[in-house]
């Protein structure tokens, strides 16, 4: 069996979903391969340049056949440069588990472009639309493999008893139809836009209830230099709630930032998951994956990684079109309203859960992982012009890399992210 070096940060990422993703990916390696064939190498952002070199030397001395970069942070470009010198230009095949931030990190990848172009390299991407986006940077088409992020099936599955208990815990009536959003709450996740549509829907269905879980963040739209002050997203939420009539106010609740165990309970207790994100890093969507594995029918934007969930079953999911406007990327509100009013969310929860766990459970993903490593890796050839221009945009205008003259998104953004749209 080939020995694999797994390079990742043993220090947790700032991004909560990335902590879960990295843990789950590592567990699939342990499920798929013998532990004696796995070498773990720490690469974290507290390391000094000398320590990074020592870690590269350590990896080199252990002689792996394949090198896998599991984590997204810190970017391993310096580490790979050391490897290139140690291996005298002949690094064994490299595998990157790409996260949603590939585009933001393109200037780092560009620094090692020459090394990658003479090293067999595979990019594991979590969804088909992310593969489309990554392929825009490549001339060769056989360097990306779709390999979804795994979901912990021991935590995320449907449990009818848990549903009963959790509905009591959250004071939900049997007549309440609970719409749930979980995840980070930022501008590009469009939670407040959904709230406005939901309030209109309440006129037709007074039994509907919207529960919101997650952390408020103030990212704005950094790609075009629209930054928010800390606290403004929460303020916008409070402001939106303040003017609701009392009877509607009671139909909307923020329930906090939940632990994984609490998330399972609320997924089981709810009736519909809804996420209308148009965030630029939405390569996969951990929350919808977990919700669907808990058998929760979902309303999702046809955007980035979300589209794959809809492709698996357009019965269990309802997709909402995305509108790529000059100033913002939004969802089709009329289509959302039609979906809400159609109200076709009654399914056997276990069936939904089974359909998605068959693809996203760690066991299923680990089987796919074995197949991915059967694939013979090839050296990539990058689209120099595209790669350089995006990389320079981040190098020179990190605070607004896709801002058009006069504001809004530029052409480069539309060219790249059209791969995420419908």
């Amino acid at each position, binding site marked *: 069996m080939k020995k694999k070096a797994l390079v990742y940060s043993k220090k947790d990422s700032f991004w909560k979903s990335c902590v879960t993703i990295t843990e789950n990916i590592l567990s699939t390696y342990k499920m798929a391969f013998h532990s004696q064939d796995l070498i773990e190498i720490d690469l974290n952002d507290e390391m000094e340049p000398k320590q990074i070199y020592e870690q590269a030397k350590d990896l080199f001395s252990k002689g792996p056949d394949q090198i896998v970069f599991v984590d997204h942070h810190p970017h391993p470009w310096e580490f790979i440069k050391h490897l290139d010198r140690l291996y005298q230009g002949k690094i064994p095949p490299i595998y990157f588990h790409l996260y949603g931030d590939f585009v933001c990190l393109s200037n780092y990848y560009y620094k090692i472009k020459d090394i990658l172009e003479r090293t067999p390299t595979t990019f594991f991407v979590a969804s088909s639309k992310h593969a489309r986006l990554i392929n825009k940077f490549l001339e060769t088409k056989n360097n990306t493999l779709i390999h979804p992020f795994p979901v912990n099936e021991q935590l995320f599955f449907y449990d009818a008893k848990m549903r009963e208990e959790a509905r009591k815990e959250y004071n939900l009536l049997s007549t309440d139809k609970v719409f749930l959003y979980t995840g980070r709450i930022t501008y590009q996740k469009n939670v407040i836009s959904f709230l406005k549509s939901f309030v209109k829907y309440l006129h037709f269905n007074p039994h509907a209830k919207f529960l919101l879980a997650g952390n408020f963040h103030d990212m704005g739209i950094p790609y075009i230099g629209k930054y928010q002050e800390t606290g*403004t997203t*929460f303020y916008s939420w409070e402001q939106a709630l303040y003017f609701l009539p009392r009877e509607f106010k009671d139909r909307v609740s923020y329930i906090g930032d939940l632990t994984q165990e609490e998330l399972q309970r609320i997924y089981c207790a709810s009736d519909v998951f809804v996420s209308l994100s148009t965030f630029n890093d939405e390569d996969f969507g951990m929350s919808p994956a977990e919700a669907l594995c808990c058998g929760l029918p979902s309303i999702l934007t046809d955007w980035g990684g979300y589209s794959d969930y809809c492709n698996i079953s357009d019965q269990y999911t309802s997709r909402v079109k995305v509108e790529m406007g000059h100033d913002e990327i939004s969802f089709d509100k009329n289509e959302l309203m039609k979906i809400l009013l159609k109200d076709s969310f009654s399914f056997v929860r276990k069936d939904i859960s089974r359909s998605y766990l068959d693809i996203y459970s760690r066991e299923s993903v680990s089987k796919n992982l074995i197949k991915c490593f059967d694939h013979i890796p090839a050296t990539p050839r990058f689209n120099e012009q595209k790669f350089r221009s995006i990389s320079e945009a981040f190098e020179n205008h990190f605070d607004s890399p896709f801002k058009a003259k006069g504001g809004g998104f530029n052409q480069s953004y539309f060219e790249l992210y059209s791969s995420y749209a419908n």
Partner: protein
Amino acid sequence: MQIDEIKEKIYSPHFIDKEISFLKRKENWNEFTRRDYHFGEFLYPFSKTYFSPLNPMFLHELNRDKAYKNISVLLARDGILGLLKFFTRYPVIPEGFPHLLVPEPFLGIIPEDWLSNISTYRLRVTNLLRRKPLDSIQNIFVFIDSDPLQNSEQYIEKKIMNLEQLFSREGLLKRKVYTITKYSFDYIFHDKYLEEKHYNYFNILRLYKKYFPNIREEIKEYEVEMKNKSNSLFVSISENAFYFNDDYFTHDFLSDGIPSLEHYLSTIKPKNEIIKLSPFHGVEITEPQGIYNSRVHSLNTNVFKEILEIEDSIITKENHYLCSPDFFDYACAVQEVLKNTHGI
């Protein structure tokens, strides 16, 4: 102004366009002076600005002529010194001045004429703030202002000793403790503290060595952002509120749902409705109950004349960035009176 009226104003659909946009351009309301710079730096990083619809700021910052007319509510982050200076300069309410929120313990220094335009505030946590099991805590962040007027030596030692006792009782002694202290000019300019000038800072280090021989780690405020704070708690050591009452880190940590040690020891439920600043904390607002401390104001008459000198006074001592030395001494005396009468 009742809380409902405040809410009506701050959640008004035009609030962002009118007030937030106005305040976002600091030059609209702040004429940046040398004293501003020194005071801001002196209190940094506790004085870092943050957004809240209650418009939190240090009162001396609002110094453009009549700029206050564009604001409906203002939360004073000041301690005793800043408030005294403000009320000495404005013994009566200037026309069009916003509704002012002042820290509850300082009601005694508010001139009677102002009471109709004042509410008092206290920071409160909501029921969504979780107390994680202490054994899951990995990082402890301690905020200390080493200035003796904000924290006396005895108080700091007592608090650090209490921390050590709690940590050893709960088996937390192997956790990482990060300390954030106030910068000083010497630190900013020379990248080091000078012991003869910053005795209190060095004293904190000595106390740490005494009580936590192996685990002290000092970090700068920008490094706080880089730490994963999910399994953390914080301790704010604050005996007095001489220079500031509302510090940036308490707001920042509570906004992220990080509890303070206080919340492990006791939870005070707000009596009134709060205005939420995050899902986890907010501000309880109360109407003044008519407490008026004549003794504090009898001191006041002695310094009215000095106010004229304040603007022109030369910065002679490190502590006097905000006012003249005489006014500074007056503020110290007021702090003593408040301590003796209200136990503040």
